[in-house]
């Protein structure tokens, strides 16, 4: 567990909450993508998705390190990226629910990457403009990676949506499953208000346009269901996150306080 004074600071400090939210999104999505390593549909794509997982892990680390630095400054307790990733429990994670859902098949995986990546793209583009200092630097670096992720995943959504009858059916199913988890990304929570609150409607519109264009190219009908699952940003998650963290945090939990 994190030290109590750190947890307390996090619960009160919106800037740190925001950094953790961005970092958690990147880490949990990276975790899911990394599960494909060694199991992809063909070697070339195994390598491609692992590249993306590594980019996302790198983004998560940059953000955790920055948050850890702020925490250290504010509490005087030396804090590390690993403490933030490995010692928080489900309720303290602030990622969007869509990141933690199981991978499903390759279609569901590339679709999730496309839906989340497109959101991250417009968000980080805004952050490049609004943010300052370390966060702007992270946004500048991440945007190039994310641009590629969107390009790669959009290509796959089109290929599979407009491929065979089977692939089309699988993509319809994946879209149906993931769609109700997309709204959470576009609905700013308290800790997002200050930084990007005013931009959120622009991000939403840009995201919707991008998704509509690619779905059309992929011959996929735009989902009609507009009921959206919320909660992740507030720490109310799906059942899947608990298992994910149990696995990810196992060594740090079983042997607390050691260096690896």
């Amino acid at each position, binding site marked *: 567990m994190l030290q109590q004074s750190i947890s307390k600071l996090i619960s009160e400090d919106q800037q740190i909450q925001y950094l953790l939210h961005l970092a958690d999104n990147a880490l949990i999505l990276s975790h899911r993508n990394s599960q494909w390593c060694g199991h992809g549909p*063909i070697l*070339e*794509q195994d*390598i*491609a998705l692992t*590249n993306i997982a590594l980019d996302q892990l790198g983004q998560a680390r940059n953000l955790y390190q920055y948050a850890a630095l702020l925490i250290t400054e504010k509490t005087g307790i030396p804090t590390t990226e690993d403490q933030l990733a490995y010692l928080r429990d489900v309720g303290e994670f602030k990622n969007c629910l869509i990141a933690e859902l199981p991978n499903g098949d390759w279609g569901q995986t590339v679709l999730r990457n496309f839906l989340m990546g497109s959101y991250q793209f417009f968000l980080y583009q805004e952050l490049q403009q609004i943010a300052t200092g370390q966060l702007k630097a992270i946004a500048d670096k991440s945007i190039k990676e994310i641009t590629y992720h969107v*390009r*790669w995943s959009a*290509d796959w959504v089109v*290929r599979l949506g407009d491929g065979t009858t089977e692939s089309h059916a699988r993509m319809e199913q994946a879209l149906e499953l993931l769609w109700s988890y997309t709204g959470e990304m576009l609905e700013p929570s308290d800790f997002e208000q200050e930084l990007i609150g005013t931009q959120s409607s622009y991000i939403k519109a840009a995201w919707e346009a991008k998704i509509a264009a690619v779905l059309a190219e992929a011959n996929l009908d735009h989902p009609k269901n507009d009921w959206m699952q919320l909660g992740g940003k507030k720490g109310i998650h799906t059942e899947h996150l608990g298992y994910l963290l149990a696995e990810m945090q196992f060594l740090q939990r079983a042997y607390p306080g050691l260096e690896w």
Partner: protein
Amino acid sequence: MRLIIQKYLYGDYGDGHAGGLEKASNQDQQKEWPLWEVFIRSKQGLDHKHAGSLHAADAIMALENARDVYTRRNEGMSIWVVESKHIHASDPDAAAEFFEPANDKIYRHPSFYDLPDSLKHM
């Protein structure tokens, strides 16, 4: 004795007869994504150099795969991909008539000319 020399792979396609992949059962051949050759410019100002090959369903994917497979350590600034079957290659059996006639044209090389050391800037 007449010998049937089997030839394989790229370069053979262009000569009108198929290469080694014909050996694979036809079904496999249709199912497998085509093979592409990857050429990478490592630095602005240098030639693209053959880096290796990979499988991809289309040119866009081939470029992306080449990026993911062959430039993970900053090896590239620019990538060319070409489907292997489009490469025409010279025949190794014709190497003698192709390349040896150049051997004795040593007057094409600057070192052929014996000039006084005092001659500058040449």
